[in-house]
């Protein structure tokens, strides 16, 4: 290694460390803000080194675990259901458009790809779901619009099927009289675990992080998931006050809002380090071959 390379390696480390600090610092501030004593936060503002620490924000969240727990549960159920349904629908479609010689295969592929080129936009989608399907103020609104299935996932799975599953294997099974369903579930799916895991993670993330469907379609705040509760606290300063009546205490709003935000990202922070490679792979596969 010559001198120039050595210097460059040192520079790389310095720059990446600075970048890491820039990217992670807001999370640390958020967590510390949620652990700051309320009157300290009001007087001195959020800081990385608060004068007085306290768990009162989390104690408050725990005391009101009914309401926050409900939002949390809604998000979990919608995420799990959404991933299971979405993954099934997408991978079935991906399988069909990779089937050689299927009459209308080209049309089906175009039918999928065209959704990437053109869409009706918010107004038409909203009126469609509200006026025709009446899914506003039902839990379907969290599950169905826009998130259930998309062309990018189908194309990612399709590319994997084409590249990694030998055609001869499926042909042999077909000659043995295996049905399409059997081939799909017993040959194709087990061989495609990496891509299915990647797509499932991306879908799960989209469901977990979604607040737009709740904002568009659900007026009743008791049906809101965790992201929508965070949004409600943003848009309505009195949102937390409505729960004061039941507990009878003043609410440490300055720190409680931060505590709820921490609770909202905690599952991602816990799961992510273990699946980091899948996420990275999913991003590259989706972008390069989308």
């Amino acid at each position, binding site marked *: 290694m010559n001198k120039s390379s050595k210097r460059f390696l040192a520079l790389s480390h310095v720059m990446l460390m600075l970048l890491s600090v820039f990217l992670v610092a807001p999370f640390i501030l958020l967590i510390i803000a949620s652990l700051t004593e309320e009157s300290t936060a009001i007087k001195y503002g*959020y800081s990385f080194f608060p004068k007085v620490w306290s768990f009162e924000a989390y104690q408050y969240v725990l005391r009101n675990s009914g309401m926050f727990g409900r939002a949390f549960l809604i998000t979990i159920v919608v995420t799990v259901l959404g991933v299971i349904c979405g993954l099934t629908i997408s991978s079935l479609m991906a399988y069909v458009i990779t089937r050689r010689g*299927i009459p209308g295969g080209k049309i089906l592929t175009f039918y999928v790809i065209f959704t990437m*080129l053109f869409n009706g936009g918010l107004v038409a989608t909203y009126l469609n779901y509200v006026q025709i399907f009446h899914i506003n103020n039902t839990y379907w609104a969290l599950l169905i619009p826009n998130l259930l299935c998309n062309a990018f996932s189908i194309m990612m799975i399709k590319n994997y099927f084409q590249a990694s599953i030998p055609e001869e294997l499926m042909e042999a099974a077909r000659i043995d009289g295996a049905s399409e*369903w059997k081939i799909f579930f017993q040959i194709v799916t087990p061989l495609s675990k990496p891509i299915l895991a990647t797509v499932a993670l991306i879908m799960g993330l989209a469901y977990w992080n979604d607040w737009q469907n709740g904002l568009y379609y659900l007026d009743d705040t008791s049906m809101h998931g965790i992201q929508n509760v965070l949004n409600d606290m943003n848009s309505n300063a009195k949102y937390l006050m409505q729960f004061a009546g039941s507990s009878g205490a003043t609410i440490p709003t*300055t720190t409680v809002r931060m505590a709820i935000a921490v609770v909202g990202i905690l599952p991602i922070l816990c799961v992510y380090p273990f699946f980091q490679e899948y996420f990275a792979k999913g991003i590259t596969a989706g*972008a390069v071959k989308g």
Partner: protein
Amino acid sequence: MSKKKKQNLKRWIPCYLMALPCVVYFFINNYMPMVGLQIAFKNFNVRDGIWGSKFIGFENFKYLFASKDAWIITRNTIGYNLFWIILNTALGIMIAIFLNEVKSKMAKKVYQTFILLPYLISMVVVSYLAYAFLSEQTGFINGILNALGLPSVMWYQKANYWPFILTIVYEWKNIGFNAIIFLASLVGISKDYYEAAEMDGATKWQQIRKITIPMLTPTIVMLVTIGMGNIFRSDFGLFYQVPRNQGLLNAATNTIDTYVFRALLQTGDIGMSSAASFYQAAVCLVTILLFNGVMKKFSEENAMF
């Protein structure tokens, strides 16, 4: 239909059944709204619905383009996108080169984990993170300013700060995404080139300019073309959540997507919002087709269709 043909079709019935859920879903979620776009040419009322409302031609568009909002939202949407495409590409390449330089597997993994972390967080949470820094009374930045004896800055009331704030937040959230994509193509470059260059005494900077950048060109073309195709779309979450829906900031934060949302669900002006929505969908189709054509010229395999 001949008997043989019929039997042939019958063989494919299970496959068509497998495709059915997806076909139905796209029909409801994507194709019906496409037809629903006609609402932009109608005077919508709830009783008559999308099909029954009265046709009024370009009336809605006349109102939209007569307002000064049409110019502001177009300028903001395109302006931010253009600037961010350039910034994202430059920063993404830089970070990818630094990451590629790191030889220790452990260190590389740690950096990658940090770099992608913001990408996984919802825009609502991002708005909380931004608020912790920018809040007028309790924000971290005003705390520092006050400690230094300087007056607080009303971040959420002055539009002129927001092009910078939005740029920082956007890059904070998305920088890892581009870096990871560039890294994937960097890994594919053969080490031989660099070894040969080093033997000839090339400096690192020369190697980057003469080997790395040219090898990355296809990826750069691909990302820029995708960005240009989507130049008429904006990240609704970023422009709605991070400025906390403050009307005072509209000059700097209103884009087509936030305008459509506010007109539809906050002021209830379906005519204006559907006209803006149609305007966006139509221009998007043109830009995507145009830039996909450009992409095809450069590299057939990266074109979408």
